[in-house]
């Protein structure tokens, strides 16, 4: 009905506490250059990710063709496989939708999950400090849930707002409802911009200026 035909649903250019298992797609074979999987980032992954991709061999970033080639070099021997998941998983994520064609194909193939969102990650090792990590986590959360948080905030309560409070460490139930009241009464200020990073910093500034929340929301 009122579907938006835009291919790109949303672009998440923060860093994420996410990684995908295909992060090292080095398998010693088959990495054809120029063959790009449609769903994962590839063309779309913006380099707004401040955490630089890790060196090859450590955590070769996801599934773009170029990356695969790099990873290949890192594991030349057939049975010298890469190991494990990507680093500790900070990376950039991209949410985009494939075209209608792929969606229909996906239905027949039961590979749903790709067709709407391709989530791809760059990756880095874990040399990021705890505070930065929390900040990144919050940025990604806000980018991925902005519309829902905005709606919850207008109502003064809701699951996404509660999750946001949880992420900020606002401990008690009463703190969460206080958070709801702050979000509701300052809705226009918080969501003045549709940029999730600005929303986040605006939101956190308000929390810090609230006497009670400043104390309880320890990660704000």
């Amino acid at each position, binding site marked *: 009905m009122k579907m*938006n035909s835009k291919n790109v649903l949303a672009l998440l250019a923060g860093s994420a506490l996410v990684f995908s298992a295909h992060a*090292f797609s080095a398998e010693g074979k088959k990495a054809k250059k120029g063959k790009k*999987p449609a769903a994962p980032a590839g063309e779309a992954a913006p380099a707004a990710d401040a955490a630089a991709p890790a060196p090859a061999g450590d955590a070769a970033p996801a599934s773009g063709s170029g990356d695969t080639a790099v990873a290949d070099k890192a594991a030349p021997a057939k049975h010298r496989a890469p190991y494990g998941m990507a680093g500790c998983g900070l990376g950039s994520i991209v949410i985009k939708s494939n075209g209608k064609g792929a969606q229909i194909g996906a239905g027949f193939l039961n590979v749903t999950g790709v067709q*709407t969102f391709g989530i791809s990650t760059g990756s880095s090792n*874990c040399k990021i400090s705890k505070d930065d990590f929390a900040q990144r986590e919050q940025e990604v959360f806000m980018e991925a*849930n902005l519309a829902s948080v905005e709606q919850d905030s207008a109502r003064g309560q809701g699951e996404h707002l509660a999750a946001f409070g949880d992420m900020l460490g606002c401990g008690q139930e009463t703190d969460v409802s206080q958070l709801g009241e702050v979000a509701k009464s300052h809705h226009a200020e918080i969501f003045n911009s549709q940029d999730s990073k600005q929303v986040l910093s605006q939101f956190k500034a308000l929390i810090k200026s609230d006497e009670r929340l400043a104390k309880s929301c320890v990660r704000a």
Partner: protein
Amino acid sequence: LNFCKTIILAASVWSASALSAGPLNYVAVIKEKHLGDHETWKKILFYGPNFYFHERSLVDAPGFFMSPIGDDHPEEELIATVEGMLKPVGSEKPDQHPQCRHPRRLKWILEQHIVEPSDLPPVVCQDYIDWLAGKHYDGISLVFSSSYPNNPSSLFGHTFMRMHRIATEQKSALLDDAINFTAFPDADDPLTYTVKGLFGRYPGYFSFTPYYLKVQEYSNADSRDLWEYRLNFSEDELEAVLHLLWELGPHRINYFYFDDNCSAVIEYFLQAAKPSLQLTGYQYWVIPSDTVKAVRRADGSQLVQSVAYRPSALTRFLQAYLRLNREAQEIVERILDQNDDSLATKLLMEQSIEARTQIVDVCLEGIEYFERLAGSKEASEYKDLRFRLLKMRTGLPTLTVPVIETPATEAPDIGHDSSRIGLSIGRSDHDNSFVDWHWRPALHDKLSNNSGFAAGLGIDFFDVNLRSEKSSETGNVRTYVPYFSPLSILSLPVIASYLRKPAWTLKFVSEDRLEWDVETMGMRDDKGFVARHRYVYTKVGIGQTWSLLPQHVLLYSMAALSAGDRHGISKGFFWEPSVLLGGLITMTENAKLSFTGESSAEKSAVTAYNVRHSLEVDTMVQLKKNHEFRMSGKASSRRYTETKVGYLWYF
């Protein structure tokens, strides 16, 4: 899940060794105890029977195996693995050491005392330790995302896993993590996509993401309900899940439509983490709801601890809409239809505060659904209206939105099984009698009991009918396939009329039309049979439904077009517009009746329009789950009639 435990394990590994004296006799131990064929070992390697009943690993990446023939010889793989674990750390990064790469295998090898911790060289798996940091879980759920009519990309549903963070650390479900296995396709047109998928040409990988991304993806962007089956996993088994994920992380499993799909791989994954489970077997076909059913039955039905439901954006909207009184519903409809923010304000200001609050909430849910708001996507069509409504909402009281307890459909595990076979006997014109064999691997047709399936959605995959017919005149027997459809979909939305979702159908069909031939004015042929012409075609139709007695009587009409190839007296391309009127009557929970009347006009380059009218009536009585009795009758203006009765068994 205990991080300390891992440290202790690692510490014991470090402190050990160097001292180990003499060559170890692990090969003899493995061979003597036949450990290479141990069920758990094979589960850890994802071994399962392939199409030819031969057992081998599902994993296609050679890098997953320590032995060059490890995907086919579990004993070789075990010997090579132990050998690798015992190898001193060389010049390469310690994290490349087999002990670091294969924590799941290491755990089992130590459990089996093939080697002792003291035999192993000390290795610090720093990357792995870093990766585990902060991953503290106390539960795992299998999540099923429903199939949903009007969204062709979700015909069969999907399964993935949710890892529950320890409640004392994180209360919110959205902040949990999801484990997903999926294909990474590189084509955008449906045909390439489908063909490549059928033959396993897409790589499949595991991914690990915050659960909120999955919720945004399924609930909001796709509008699909989620069912979460919390599984009974011990702390050890949860730890094994992480071991496995690390081990499999980078490795490719080719994604096959039929068997190695998301669902099958998840079955393998679960039993590799909890080896007492046996979910997989020889299976030519795995669909997500089958996995849910297998999990439901597993462990003497003790595996599933609880079931939770998470409504999609559409369900949230509809349920909220249906809770309103009629007057409020009409206001919602006007606001959303007109999409004019000043009109909305005017309408809302006439309402009491309580009604206004409810209406604004429902409208916001509606916009969320119509705009498919997910992630940080902005509303476009309803941008101004949404802005105005949000602003107005901040001035209204904070209300707890009621929790939706009654899902739109029943849990997927209670539905009938997916595959079915059937046997019918019948009688056609001039007393010819026939026997029909029927086979259909998946999934659900409009006449079956709806429990566990989306109402009004029929998906028949690979539907085959084989008929043996005996002529009453000559006694001759002929055997043929009167009907075969690789895929046919019928969607009859029964949800609130306000949404006015279209009814639609899509069918790929090869059928034999039995009828008196207009072209030859043919009677029966000399063997005593009615003429039979094969039509191979695609049919698309679109129309509307009317819910006369909600839950009981549904009427629909459609305009359709078929086009394809016919093998009659005149061969070649044909097209055939048609109109049809149908009804679906649910008499009791276990009995349904449907009728379809259709008028069509067949046309080809060389013939004029041939008009046909046909009527078909079908009834179903469910004897018990998975057992159905069916009866049907067909009549056509081309002087052909047929009646049959039969029995269907789902398995």
